[in-house]
């Protein structure tokens, strides 16, 4: 890993909700390289989105706190620990929205309804690149063309409500790309889109990555989308990373009982219609208690006595295939 862009160590994120502590992310380590698409997959409440937000310093805005750990971001000439920066500091503002871009699930909610798309893309480039109004508009048109919106000269003056869901997501991608980010954090970017439109947006993201050589942290609950987009995948459950490996190994040879179960429950892999799908019993528990052992122990079909007592170490039974499970001790 020579060309590291991001190095996260021992990251812990906590939220306060109704007097209770929510243990959202519980000591995770991972690296992200330049040009890589790293997928994070998991069910709701596994901490995948919060991990993405923490890189941008947005956790405090959601009422959470990074309680320990480091997020080292490798710039050209220096290394910055993003976790140590204040969410409103100039230092993080220079990086967020400039070198680090983000797109969200719900494009309508993340765009302002009262500004045209041109103004919204323009705001970012005027702020970060210091362009004037006219240059910003030209850059906006150029970006709309880059995200393959037809008639960019007209669309630049459209308001978000005049665009379809797919086009709004293209505008969001345009804003995220406006300052040539090194890393794009994509949080469920196609979840609210229809199948044929989802295909278009995924294709666009792949093209842009190849064109601009940026890294993508691709967050999704959908194993199918992850299979299509990621080079490497992390599977998360209740704030921990269960398994990390390259995309081929993950799907061909999953090692963690949770990953195996997730794949088996997928109806598209059922041997025949109306057969009995394998299920994971119960549901994802609320993360309101600190878990001493493996967080999946209560639902695991290969559980051992040790599992609920001691947190599994990251084992590497195969090269570059890391799994936090006592089965591989």
């Amino acid at each position: 890993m020579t060309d590291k862009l991001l190095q996260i160590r021992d990251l812990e994120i906590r939220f306060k909700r109704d007097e209770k502590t929510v243990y959202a992310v519980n000591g995770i380590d991972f690296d992200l390289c330049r040009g890589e698409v790293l997928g994070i997959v998991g069910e709701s409440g596994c901490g995948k989105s919060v991990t993405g937000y923490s890189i941008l310093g947005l956790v405090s805005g959601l009422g959470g706190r990074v309680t320990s750990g480091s997020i080292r971001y490798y710039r050209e000439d220096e290394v910055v620990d993003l976790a140590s920066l204040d969410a409103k500091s100039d230092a993080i503002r220079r990086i967020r929205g400039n070198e680090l871009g983000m797109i969200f699930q719900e494009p309508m909610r993340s765009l302002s309804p009262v500004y045209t798309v041109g103004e919204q893309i323009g705001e970012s480039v005027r702020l970060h690149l210091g362009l004037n109004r006219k240059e910003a508009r030209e850059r906006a048109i150029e970006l709309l063309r880059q995200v393959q919106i037809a008639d960019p000269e007209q669309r630049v003056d459209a308001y978000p409500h005049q665009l379809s869901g797919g086009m709004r997501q293209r505008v969001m991608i345009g804003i995220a790309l406006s300052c040539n980010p090194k890393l794009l954090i994509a949080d469920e970017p196609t979840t609210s889109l229809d199948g044929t439109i989802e295909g278009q947006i995924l294709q666009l993201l792949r093209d842009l990555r190849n064109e601009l050589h940026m890294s993508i942290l691709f967050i999704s609950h959908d194993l199918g989308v992850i299979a299509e987009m990621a080079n490497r995948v992390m599977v998360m459950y209740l704030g921990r990373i269960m398994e990390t490996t390259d995309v081929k190994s993950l799907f061909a040879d999953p090692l963690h009982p949770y990953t195996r179960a997730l794949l088996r429950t997928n109806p598209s892999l059922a041997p025949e219609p109306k057969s009995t799908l394998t299920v994971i019993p119960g549901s994802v528990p609320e993360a309101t208690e600190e878990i001493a052992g493996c967080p999946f122990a209560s639902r695991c079909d290969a559980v051992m006595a040790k599992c609920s007592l001691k947190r599994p170490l990251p084992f590497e039974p195969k090269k570059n295939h890391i799994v936090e499970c006592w089965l591989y001790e």
Partner: protein
Amino acid sequence: MNEEAIEPMDPALLEISGLKKYFPIQKGIFRRTIGSIRAVDGVDLVVQRKETLGLVGESGSGKTTVARIAAGLVQPTAGSVIFRGGGREVDMTRMTSKERKIAWRDLQMIFQDPYGSLNPRMPILETVGEPLIVQHGTKGNVLREQVIQLLERVGLQSSHAGCYPHELSGGQKQRVGLARALALNPELIICDEAVSALDVSVQSQILNLLVQLQKESGMSYLFIAHSLSVVGFMSDRIAVMYLGRVVEVARSEDLFNRPLHPYTEALLFNDPVPDPAAARKRRVLKGEIPSPANPPAGCAFHPRCPYATEPCRTKSPRLEEQEPGHWASCLRWNEISLEGRQ
């Protein structure tokens, strides 16, 4: 178990014919009608007894409107929905509220959003028991016992009867919705995106439950979802909708292995499969889904269709039985060879 084919003479449980629903587009302070959204534009479908008919399509395809009309919740612009449940034969589109109440003994609906479809101020006992109270006047301990039986049937415990919706997880709420739908032993349950909001691990539990309940009680499902994998798993037959019309109907395996409509092929390509090798094969469809207020002339799919030729722009194809039990509305179905899952 005797699972032989349904006799062709057996009248269908649900028969949707010539169904249309136009929503007016109004403008100005006098609400002048300036056009209409053709949400459903001529749909014919049947659901046989003990069968699951899957209905897939993207947003704006009209699948939810079809479901709501079939349940008697929305009045169509034209067409009929004949429901033959409970030994009666009724048209769901032309009935008094009293008749509708009777029909709902045999036809129930479950919805996507388990949060929005349960009354937050009603304990589960009342939510599940309400159909029994309204229809049969069940009360007291009898009601309680019946509700507990229903809860156990859907994998919940008797202790859940006293809970309120906010105390339950998403999967548990969907089980409550299902228990309520089952209360009157219906012959048809219309499931509108019933598992779409659930996490995958919970989704498979609910799918298994739906399959198991059907095997036990022999009811039919009209199963609506946007995910082809989910619909393929649940359904005996599948109907694909695009812009208010059915473009293809076939037995599930035929639809997956040998699609006859280019739109079905596109849906198959764009359904994410958890297999990196298959995923890279995805072929992307051009263009946006047109607005049902202004559908394209000719075949509504022609602007996005990779196989469209000149006649497709002007001539509107009809849904016809191209192969036994396999209906498709494509002018060129015979000239093109489409790729299925295998």
